[in-house]
């Protein structure tokens, strides 16, 4: 099974996105890491690492919101032992839409590549239809 880690500068955004995805993809393992170590806006590499390590999933997809969320996630990835690192993928997708698409796809039993593909499609999927 694929698990998901959500890294946002805001606790509410991370938690709310996790709730939204869980509503549609109930049995998927999702861990939300919002805010920095002091509980203010920011990202916290130690908790990102703990979240990734805490999931039981065979493969872990990490979604990040803005700038330092990406830097923090990349730094955590670099520090993970190789055998753990190869199970983790940072996904270059919109935070809410990407996590949602990946979560729903994961709930069907799809593998990580299929979930990543679904998440990446969320970037180009139009929200408003022309004409």
């Amino acid at each position, binding site marked *: 099974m694929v698990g998901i880690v959500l890294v946002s500068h805001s606790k509410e955004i991370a938690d709310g996105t996790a709730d939204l995805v869980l509503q549609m993809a109930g049995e998927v393992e999702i861990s939300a890491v919002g805010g*920095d*170590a002091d509980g203010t806006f*920011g990202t*916290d*590499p130690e908790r990102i690492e703990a979240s990734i390590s805490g999931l039981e999933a065979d493969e872990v997809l990490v979604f990040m919101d803005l700038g330092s969320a990406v*830097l923090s996630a*990349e*730094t955590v990835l*670099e520090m993970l032992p190789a055998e753990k690192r190869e199970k983790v993928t940072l996904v270059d997708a919109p935070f809410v839409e990407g996590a949602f698409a990946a979560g729903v796809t994961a709930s069907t039993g799809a593998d990580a590549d299929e979930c990543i593909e679904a998440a990446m499609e969320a970037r180009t999927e139009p929200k408003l239809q022309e004409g």
Partner: protein
Amino acid sequence: MEENRRYLTKLDSEIGDGDHGNNMNRGFQAALERLEGADASTPADVLKAVSMALISKVGGAAGPLYGTAFLRASSALGDKEEVSAEDAAEALEAALGGIKQRGKAEVGDKTIVDALEPAVEAARDAAGEGSVAGVFRSAADAAEAGAESTVELTAKRGRASYLGARAAGHQDPGATSTYMLLDAAARVLEGSS
């Protein structure tokens, strides 16, 4: 960092989120605490302990960036017990490589790289003279000029990049803190040599 906390925060509140001084101060205080309790037997161990403190305590983009820099510098020194001028220049070069890879920035983007890249070039030139203090003094002077050069620039990376041309006219906080770190190292080394 403690002395310059307000100055860095002022620079950062002009073009960023106004937390760089506090964040850097918190990170380096944590690094000091970690070093007091650490079993750091080599220079690489010291750099690694600092890296871990910065990654976990600085927050923002600066934590992962400086944390990666110290981590790469630590790896570059390996298990050496004494650091030569050449080793110091190599460690600085490794730190720059880490920052560029992590932040995907180049010279001219109004970032740490604008201070650190000229610093590494100056460090490399100074390494031949054999003094570690000299390497850091040359690096710090070049970083100071590099940090000043960011005043004119428009940011291409980080939060200031959202400001576009409005970020011009302000000195980059990250490039400034890089100069401060190198200058602090140089002053300590000059005092001990």
